[in-house]
């Protein structure tokens, strides 16, 4: 047993898992508010990362400004997407809504490849020190920052839903659209806002991953990794999304460890979450924290 490697991988797992958790939260946000499953979540990361990269390299902006403009752009993008594409789909069967987001996902992925090419491009360096030592372990600064940002976003979500007026309106809409509407909540605004926030938060995750690995289409794989995370945690639970993300991140890395030490199969890292996904769906289909919907006829 190589304990150092295991420890390193567990730390990596928590950091990556926190990012999965952030993306899973933005996925759950859309699902909770508007009952839409967004298969294009990974493309939100991709678009956000490319937008920030473009601002930083083409206009030589300082990182803070480029980042803020990216967030504003992604907010507008989320709202426009919701109004133009998702609003006509209200009331359509779930298959159609899923397919529309799948269509969006391939469209934007191809568009990004067309505009920026297929090869990964490195982000301009943001921090002066490359890595810091934590408990005798070299951790990249970006990773440490990403963990901090993830925790801030998670706390922000918690505050938003618990105390802010709009957050309460969102929870009410998620609970019962008709009642919420009759209480004077604009359901349309809630839908649009949930897409805007989701796009913004995904873009943050996209920029963080982009600064570590460079920006490329591989980023959108985060959108697929989100599914094991949200199913594990329960589709409509924000807390579940965070915990599911952490579990998937840890699982990947621990599977990678066992693979490299004992099995030597090759790509357990990529595939292990999907085996777990199937097992979870078989034994506990609504996940750890999901609401089991009971249908009355």
């Amino acid at each position: 047993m190589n304990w150092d490697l295991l420890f390193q991988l567990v730390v990596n797992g928590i950091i990556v898992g926190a990012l999965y958790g952030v993306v899973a939260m933005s996925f759950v946000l859309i699902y909770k508010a508007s009952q839409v499953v967004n298969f294009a979540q990974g493309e939100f990361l991709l678009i956000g990362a490319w937008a920030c990269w473009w601002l930083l390299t083409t206009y030589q902006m300082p990182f803070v400004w480029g980042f803020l403009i990216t967030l504003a752009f992604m907010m507008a993008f989320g709202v426009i997407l919701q109004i133009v594409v998702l609003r006509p789909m209200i009331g359509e069967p779930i298959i159609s809504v899923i397919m529309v987001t799948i269509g969006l996902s391939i469209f934007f992925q191809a568009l990004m490849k067309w505009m920026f090419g297929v090869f990964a491009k490195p982000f301009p360096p943001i921090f002066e020190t490359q890595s810091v030592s934590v408990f005798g372990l070299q951790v990249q600064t970006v990773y440490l920052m990403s963990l901090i940002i993830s925790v801030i976003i998670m706390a922000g979500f918690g505050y938003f839903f618990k105390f802010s007026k709009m957050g309460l309106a969102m929870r009410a809409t998620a609970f019962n659209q008709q009642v919420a509407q009759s209480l004077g909540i604009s359901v349309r605004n809630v839908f649009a806002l949930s897409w805007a926030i989701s796009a913004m938060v995904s873009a943050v995750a996209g920029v963080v991953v982009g600064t570590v690995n460079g920006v490329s289409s591989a980023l959108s794989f985060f959108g697929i990794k989100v599914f094991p995370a949200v199913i594990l945690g329960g589709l409509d639970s924000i807390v579940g999304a965070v915990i599911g993300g952490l579990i998937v991140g840890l699982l990947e890395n621990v599977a990678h460890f066992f693979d490299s030490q004992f099995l030597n199969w090759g790509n357990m890292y990529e595939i292990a979450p999907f085996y777990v996904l199937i097992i979870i769906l078989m034994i506990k289909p609504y996940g750890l924290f999901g609401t089991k919907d009971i249908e009355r006829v």
Partner: protein
Amino acid sequence: MTTLIPCGDFKTNYSADTTIFPTATSRNMVILGIAVLCLAPLVMDRYLLSLLIQIGYLGIAALGLNILVGFTGQISIGHAAFFGFGAFSSAWLVSNFNVPVFFAIPLAGVMTTAVGMVFGLPAARLKGLYLAIATLAAQFILQDFFARASWFSGGVAGTLTEPFSIFGFTFDTDESYFYVVLAYVVVMYILGTNLMRTRDGRALVAVRDHYLSAEMMGINLTKYRTLSFGISAFYAGIGGALYAHYLQFVSVEGFTILFSIQFLGMIIIGGLGSIMGSLMGTAFMVLLPESMQWLTDALAGSAIDRALDLSNSLAFLREMAIGAVIILFLIFEPDGLAHRWHQVKAYWKLYPFSH
């Protein structure tokens, strides 16, 4: 049988209601259509013929997906993986057990059915979105299996397979293989049409329309949900096997999630829950990238070409077109081409009155 149906529903018994061909003319038109298709190899060049063959084997798989999605109401995002499994298992049967290709194709369908049922097991408990994600997992697990199991699929190198042959005659050209695919398309589409006229087929539709009512009427939900996965995988397997013996080479890279989404695109464009729509949608989806190629060739050297660098970005433009077409159809034409075709027919039948 008369040659015209009166306007309105005047059917008095069940057999008249569920008949495949309502009039003698419609039956004769189908027979004529197949006869004309039989002449295609004589007049078409190899390129057009290869497109027709593609429409054939993809259309079979698309019909399978339509039975699952359109008729039973369960979404699957892993159809390409089952298509690939059919291709690999047919090649595996031929090369390892010396099974003649003639028998290997249906056997590959049976093997794929078994795999489809296994991955369809979550369908016994899940529906809608949860199921979609379970099939997503199936897609990745099978893809990983193809890459790793070199005893089965030849690993990353892919596997070679033999051409279709019967009674010593080998169908190794486009002209001859066209007839094999055509025969399979006719048989599989007749099977599909007839399935929907049986008790089992109607049970599938009942599961889609209202699963609780269906269960109360005594339909075993678990059985029919798993069954529809099996049927859909069977069609995918047959389609995949035909593909394997057409190209005579199967490689792992082909069966990605994008391909699965293309299958979903085919049935959405053609029309969910329409047998002929599956074929129309497949034709649309096969011809769409080709027509973009033609468009690019036509625009070569023009200002648009220079501005967008069409020839180098064609691959991306094709992918974008697939995504855009799926979105546009869902927003503006959710019932697909089959619905539009019905409207055209109704227009001519009812002319000059619109109702």
